[in-house]
């Protein structure tokens, strides 16, 4: 005796958020049933294991049927097959596109290609996110990337409109797309201490300040590429380290401002020239795609690590960078104030975000 067929279909599609999450997390039906049993749902309504199994199967089927629609969320609102209340639609979409920070951290900056997809089982083993869930998340990244790649206009806005995501999630996807497009290196050991949210923040800074769209969002070009002209102009900043007078003047201005305000003043004074060279060299090299990829690793190696070994506190760091940036304005012979601000604004906030253990 066995149940050959068992279905339950409601006029309004019934979906349990807990089961949806289990499905998204890649649990098999049987594992999901186990988790639900442990969760104590059986006590409600005197359910038995069979009831739970049948319910879980029903819901899994429903989700599978919905998955096609979730790939283009705008369809979900005007399809006729499932009658889903609007707030449920939002939940379905938001959860479907949600991802694990640990997983995304692994693929961040990698090419969203078949090759990477093949490595998902390794990533799955490493992050203990199920392979099924990894695939879903990876395909989501890829799908969003493909759609947005071709579009004009602001990146975050495009993602939000096409995938009906919340602002937060849209921003995260913008970061992922941006990283994938520019292939930023994030996997090196020295960068391991950084979380996805650190990178997402930096990506946000880069998108809103260093792309073409940042200056003029009506331009043909898109948000996903850095502003070439700007990168070219960055070379001009070299004068701050090549011109000896300018360098000394800058240092003395900064040191005057810092004196007495920090415990690590001596260290700051000592490493000023190195640090300044480090930052400006990063700027000057950004015209090379290769060096763009190494942007974050360079920031860490050239700036964050030296500071850390001198035991600067985060506040010291802030103080230093603020004065470092502002002092440049007082230099009479330094003419590239606008480029300087555009560069340092982003670098400053990125370093603030990245300066932690």
């Amino acid at each position, binding site marked *: 005796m066995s149940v050959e067929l068992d279905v339950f279909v409601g006029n309004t599609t019934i979906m349990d958020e807990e089961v949806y999450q289990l499905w998204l997390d890649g649990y098999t039906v049987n594992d999901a049933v186990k988790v639900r049993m442990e969760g104590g749902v059986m006590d409600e309504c005197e359910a038995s294991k069979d009831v739970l199994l049948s319910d879980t199967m*029903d819901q899994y089927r429903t989700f599978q049927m919905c998955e096609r629609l979730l790939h283009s969320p705008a369809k979900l*609102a005007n399809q006729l097959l499932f009658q889903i209340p609007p707030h449920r639609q939002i939940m379905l979409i938001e959860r479907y596109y949600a991802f694990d920070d640990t997983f995304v951290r692994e693929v961040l900056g990698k090419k969203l290609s078949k090759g990477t997809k093949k490595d998902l089982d390794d990533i799955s083993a490493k992050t203990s996110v199920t392979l099924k869930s990894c695939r879903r998340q990876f395909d989501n990244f890829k799908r969003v990337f493909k759609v947005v790649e071709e579009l004009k206009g602001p990146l975050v806005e495009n993602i939000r409109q096409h995938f009906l995501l919340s602002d937060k999630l849209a921003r995260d996807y913008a970061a992922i797309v941006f990283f994938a497009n520019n292939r930023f290196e994030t996997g090196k050991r020295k960068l391991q201490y950084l979380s996805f949210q650190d990178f997402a923040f930096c990506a946000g800074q880069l998108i809103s300040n260093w792309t073409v769209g940042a200056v003029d969002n009506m331009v043909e070009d898109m948000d996903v590429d850095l502003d070439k002209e700007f990168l070219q102009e960055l070379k001009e900043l070299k004068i701050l380290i090549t011109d000896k007078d300018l360098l000394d003047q800058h240092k003395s201005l900064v040191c005057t401002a810092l004196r007495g305000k920090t415990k690590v003043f001596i260290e700051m004074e000592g490493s000023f020239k190195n640090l300044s060279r480090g930052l400006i060299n990063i700027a000057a090299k950004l015209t090379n795609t290769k060096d763009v990829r190494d942007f974050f690793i360079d920031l860490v190696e050239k700036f964050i690590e030296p500071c850390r070994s001198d035991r600067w506190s985060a506040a010291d760091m802030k103080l230093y960078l603020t004065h470092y940036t502002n002092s440049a304005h007082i230099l009479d012979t330094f003419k590239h104030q606008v480029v300087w601000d555009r560069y340092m604004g982003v670098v400053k906030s990125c370093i603030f975000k990245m300066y932690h253990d």
Partner: protein
Amino acid sequence: MPGKLKAKIVAGRHLPVMDRASDLTDAFVEVKFGNTTFKTDVCPKSLNPQWNSEWFKFEVDDEDLQDEPLQITVLDHDTYSANDAIGKVYIDIDPLLYSEAASVISGWFPIYDTIHGIRGEINVIVKVELFNDLNRFRQSSCGVKFFCTTCIPQCYRATLVHGFVEELVVNEDPEYQWIDRIRTPRASNEARQRLISLMSGELQRKIGLKVLEMGGNAVVGYLQCFDLEGESGLVVRAIGTACTLDKLSSGSAPNTNTHMHPNTAPASNACNSPSKDGKESPLAHGCRSTHNSPVHSVCSSQRLSQNFSVSVPTLIFTGMGSGGSAGKEAGPLRTLLRQQTQTALEQREFPFFTLTSFPPGFLLHVGGVVSARSVKLLDRIHNPDEPETRDAWWEEIRQEIKSHARALGCHAVVGYSESTSICEEVCILSASGTAAILNPRYMREGCLDIGCTDHRFEEPSPPNCGFCHIPYDELNMPFPAQLTYCYHCRRQKVPDVLFTTIDLPSEAAVAGKGCLIQARLCRLKKKAQGEANATAISNLLPFMEYELHTQLMNKLKLRSMNALFGLHIQISVGENMLLGLASATGVYLTALPAPGGIQIAGKTPGDLSSEHISSIQKRINDTIAVNKELYQINPPELAEEGVGSPIPEPRHRSRLFRSHSESSDELSELDLSHGKKDAFVLEIDDTDAVEDIHSLLIDAPPPTGFYSCNTENMPGISNWTSGVQMFTSVRVLRLSNANLTNQGLNKIFTDLCENLLKSFYFKLRSMIPCCLCHLNFTVAVPEEELIQVTVTAVAMTYDKEQTQEKTAEKPVNKGSLEAEEQLQFPLELCADSSSSNIQTASKISGVGESTNMSPRAASVDYGSFADRCSTWLELLRLKAHTIRRGSVKTISSLERCSPLQEGRSRSLRSSRSFGGSSVTVVKMTPLSFLPGTRIIKYLGIINMFFIRETTSLREEGGVSGFLHSFIAEVFAMVRAHVAALGGNAVVSYSMKECVFMENPNKNQAQCLINVSGDAVICISETDQESSASTANTGQTGGSETDGAT
């Protein structure tokens, strides 16, 4: 040339990719009606084609308009090979044929393919212009309204109820024609779908003609069924109750129709059958079964010379009871009434009514359930134009029903229904109903309207107990029965138990809540062929009926209740077994005596198992006590004294088990006609009996917060809130073990049903407190070792705080809350959407969605939170739309072409710009009402038949995946049709047929589904004042959508 049908193909969306090379589709559309076909241009390389076609015009007879569906086929153009069909849409244009219903059908329809399911959607507009018909001898019956609802529809008043109408049409089943062997499955399925659509159209037209002949204008309680007889053909049959309905003006509606079952007024029918001698077979307990017709074969009859037919002895389920002399002053009056009614009813052949609820005062007395079954051998239908054989079969059964009713002293049958079960060439025909006496004042024309004539007849009995009073003559009872004086009025006799197929009359006095009671039974039978098989089945039937009845009675007593409503007994035949399932809603009627307990007795006194017996007895006693608590059965004893009854108040509830023996003892002092009554005794004489008793106790009560019933109204609950969830569930069990016993099978079957219920409770737990209403179980034996149970029901939330208050009024506070939300909501959005993009809003509505979506819809369905979310989502969507180029097209031409539509479109647009999803929310319910709302317009009957087949079963997720998506597709198509009619709900929805066949080895499966219901526009109760005024101005389109929920 009495009609012009016009159709326009606007656009498609979400089409499947038909050309792998380009990942696109070159779609065009064929529009066919009768033998005329039009084509649109090919819209090259698009998955969202915009055809914006001209109006295709068909000039046709109204007869064809009724019979034929409009067929729309979407194809992919292929230059070199044959065009590929993408899918089809059948549109039943019947709703456009009567003036009060829909004026236009316009909206997005799912494009359906019998192999692939839904493949995108198409936007279509259909209109009909009818010319005045001067031909008296016409074959059409345009204008007759059909309702599935089994009560007088809200917003109508019945001025006259004419009575029973029936019709059947037969044809060969295309699936079994020789050509099927060379046809593709798709072609075969489509031929079948088309044929059934045609046949139901024809059937409806023929019934309409009968109604017109009778002078009516509507059919209420329309029940249409298919018999898939396989080789021998296809039968489509229907029954209904012909009425003359008057539309209540919207202004007056709120006064007369504030509650769910509005005032109505049915009437007449005749019964002059020869009364049969019932062969009495008094049974150990309350079941009095009369074997009116001993088995007789009618092989000899000339008409049926080729058919083997067995008429099965039938049982009349009643409570015990006897009769007439009871009411002293009412006695002579009753006789008078009866005579009058009799004559009125004699006008009709069958005094049957398919209605299940009636206006107050219509139903005088209820006798009990009458049912008849007959086993027939199917034979090929030789001449489809003369479906005499089938007609004769049904005629026979109806005659039998009539005579049963007669035997119960009744002249009418209410809550009447018919069904069949077919296995190979054997067919069981069943009919059942409730014998009743109707008020003669509803029988004659002119007497109905006002209360003017009413006063001539004194109310023969108080409304809250009158229907329980026995209709039959006490001195000439059809069977021995226990009678007592009515516990309400103390004037007339009532039986101790009452079984009916109707809904609980709204005025009936009940104690506590009702509950679903089911009796389930399996009987093995030997495989056999032909006559031997039919005989075997007909021999088994009476035993099954008897056992089902016994189970029902035991379970009723176990719940301490004394009446069953909505009783439906289904017996389903398979190759090697028969399944019986009886469902009903148990209730405690305060007019009837308290049920006695159940006494367990050993076969012989001093049996060794006496300890065992006493332990069982204890369990039973405990169960009864628990149930009393659970269903809050505390009969109002004080009320009885208040009546000032002449009979000393029997204190029969001091102990649990002697109730009725005591009370009747006391009564017998006054009425010596009663013999000595025994308590209800179950005898344990063998292990089977022990099993039976165990199985009695298996039924788990619903978990806290749930109630269940299978009727329209849940006894004891009336304060519904707005949560509604209709669902369909199908479960198929494979019996692996060949050596099953009857007992084992029973257990399996019972568990199957119980587990289904448990699943429902679990799935719907978020709706607590909630009631599963109209639980409709259907059983089938699709193959030798398969048992299929299909359930359709609706879960409705109610307000727990007020459950005790029995009021027909809807909770007002709830409604006003909604109104408040609504106020805030558009305001917020107005600002939003106008600032975001007004153009977009109008563009989107311009895409041609005629579906109306007002913010209220969302608010009713999903609460205010949902509104806000939907707003947000919609806004996002709106914005997205502006960005995607080409995805929107203006459709100003559409508006121009459909002036009728204008009012609606405009209001649609405005409401849509206020957010909500672009798809109309369509609620569905098997009940005749939606809580918290009022139906302002019936748009027509929905009657759809679909076939789905697959040759890649595994790929579609196995049988469950296949059926799951098919049922979801059927729901989607029903909703789309309702929305296209301008409606927002389906009431009296039912899934009449769900035939599932599989062949896993071949990776194939096929399923047929037939659904029906009434498409309606309903508005929230709180809106009715405002909308009533708009409706009064005569707007047909505008007002509906304003407040549409």
